[in-house]
């Protein structure tokens, strides 16, 4: 009985603690009717509740478009409350930019609304959401309480969408993952670059194709915009694209050179980082993760089939 009591008490306590987790979200207006809710530049931690991500919303005279929903149910609920405090316009549509958990695990709070994503994004969510959930619960803990994966209900295609008087363009890119959606609000000149662009925070690469990513950055640079909202890090402009490109170029050249001289993966873990990257958020942990993600592809090129081989 006392054991049951302790268990009950524990359950009550953790529920209360989770319900108390306050993300302290703030909506920052970066252009008329265009808002950003900025996250930390660190990794997921217990303390930040997984809030490492930038969320956007665009208000029109015909409703609100929400870009990404955050890392947890609680985040999603607090985001929705924040949007409803900020504007009288109703939320009409929610978009998930790509399949990483910090961008769509808040979907639960918007389950009564249309949620849309690119088809490849939805497929990747279906394949990997379970693993993401396990991992986030383990790292973030309490703030994840009650989070369940809610899949998008609509598929998106690139092109212009209507939102009141606003001209909003969706671009389907790739490289950070197999499908990365970027939102350009022509009316305000704001580019929501999703995780195509990181600023003052190291890029993450678990599903990256760096060559593809660099090509996508070229395309982004050709767009007309004044303000850029990166997926992670402070609001910026084209300088954020240049920083992301610089880092990806350095990282890939560094790994290629290491593979060519026969370095073992373990020998790369503590490579000194160039000064301009050493102080980015989540460094050096993010670099170490990238070695694990990307190095196998480079070393593969330097493991030729031998001239003489025999299998019996």
């Amino acid at each position, binding site marked *: 009985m006392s054991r049951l009591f302790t268990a009950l008490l524990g359950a009550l306590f953790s529920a209360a603690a989770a319900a108390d987790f306050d993300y302290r979200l703030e909506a920052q207006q970066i252009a008329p009717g265009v808002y950003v809710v900025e996250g930390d530049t660190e990794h997921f931690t217990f303390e930040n509740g997984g809030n490492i991500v930038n969320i956007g919303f665009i208000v029109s005279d015909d409703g609100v478009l929400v870009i990404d929903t955050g890392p947890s149910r609680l985040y999603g609920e607090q985001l929705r409350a924040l949007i409803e405090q900020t504007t009288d316009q109703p939320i009409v549509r929610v978009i998930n930019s790509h399949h990483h958990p910090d961008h769509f695990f808040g979907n639960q709070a918007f389950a009564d609304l249309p949620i849309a994503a690119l088809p490849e994004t939805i497929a990747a969510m279906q394949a990997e959401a379970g693993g993401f959930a396990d991992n986030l619960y383990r790292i973030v803990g309490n703030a994840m309480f009650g989070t369940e994966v809610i899949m998008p209900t609509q598929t998106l295609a690139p092109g212009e969408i209507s939102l009141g008087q606003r001209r909003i363009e969706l671009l389907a890119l790739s490289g950070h993952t197999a499908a990365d959606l970027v939102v350009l609000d022509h009316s305000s000149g704001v580019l929501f670059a999703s995780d195509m662009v990181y600023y003052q925070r190291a890029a993450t690469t678990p599903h990256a194709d760096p060559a593809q990513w660099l090509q996508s950055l070229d395309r982004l640079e050709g767009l007309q915009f004044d303000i850029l909202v990166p997926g992670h890090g402070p609001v910026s402009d084209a300088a954020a694209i240049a920083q992301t490109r610089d880092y990806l170029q350095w990282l890939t050249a560094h790994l290629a050179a290491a593979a060519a001289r026969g370095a073992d993966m373990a020998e790369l873990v503590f490579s000194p980082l160039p000064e301009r990257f050493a102080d980015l958020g989540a460094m050096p942990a993010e670099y170490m993760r990238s070695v694990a993600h990307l190095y196998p592809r480079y070393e593969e090129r330097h493991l030729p089939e031998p001239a003489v081989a025999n*299998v019996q």
Partner: protein
Amino acid sequence: MSVRALILLCAALFAGTAHAATTALPKDPLHSGQWPTMARLFLGEQVVFDQRVRLLAPPEAEDSMNFPVLVDASQLAAEAGPIEEIVVFADYNPIPLVLKFQPGRAAPRLGFRLKLQQGTPIRAGARTADGVWHVGHIEVDAAGGGCTVPSLAHGNADWSSRLGEISGGLFEREQGARLRFRVMHPMDTGLADGIPVFRIEHIELSDADGALARIEPYEPVSENPLFSLDLPSSSAISLAGRDNNANRFSAEIHP
């Protein structure tokens, strides 16, 4: 000197005394409950902790199916003489013994990847000619990062046609050469339902002067194992090995 360093020093002195008197096992600075068992199973009577046995590895496992480790006992070898054998084990792995390596004429340095089930100490014992096991270790957090995805087992239908295939290259260094080679092999642990243990048992390396080194990988070594070794010269290397199903494989790697 910090308090912590002082405590460590005292612990080291104490361990040293105990060792001299009773050959008792040195106390584990990582406080692993498994340490006495590990030492009894994989090491010998004389065991010392020795920072000259270095393990290079990330602090966290991003991919728990492929955790990279480089064991390097070259400083120990330079100061205490040739290393006869290196044994690597991970205290909290369900199968703790990772591999044995007899460096022979190669440098006492080996890079490889292993499978981790959870956070654990990873240790390497290097045995010098006097029979003493010099143990170095690291502690690894296998909680992973934000976007860690559980690795998919190679679902390739053609795995059996590539079984035992070796690919590799020699990379010239200032002195000698770095050899890297990979053997296509599932390295099944026997812990997954309905899949029995299927692993490489040993790989022999030789050159024109005869036997060079020997690696015995155990179940925790990653699928399609990839090894890095440092060799005295960049001349052609012969590799020959077999697995526990008596499949034999061999290859020659030329510079």
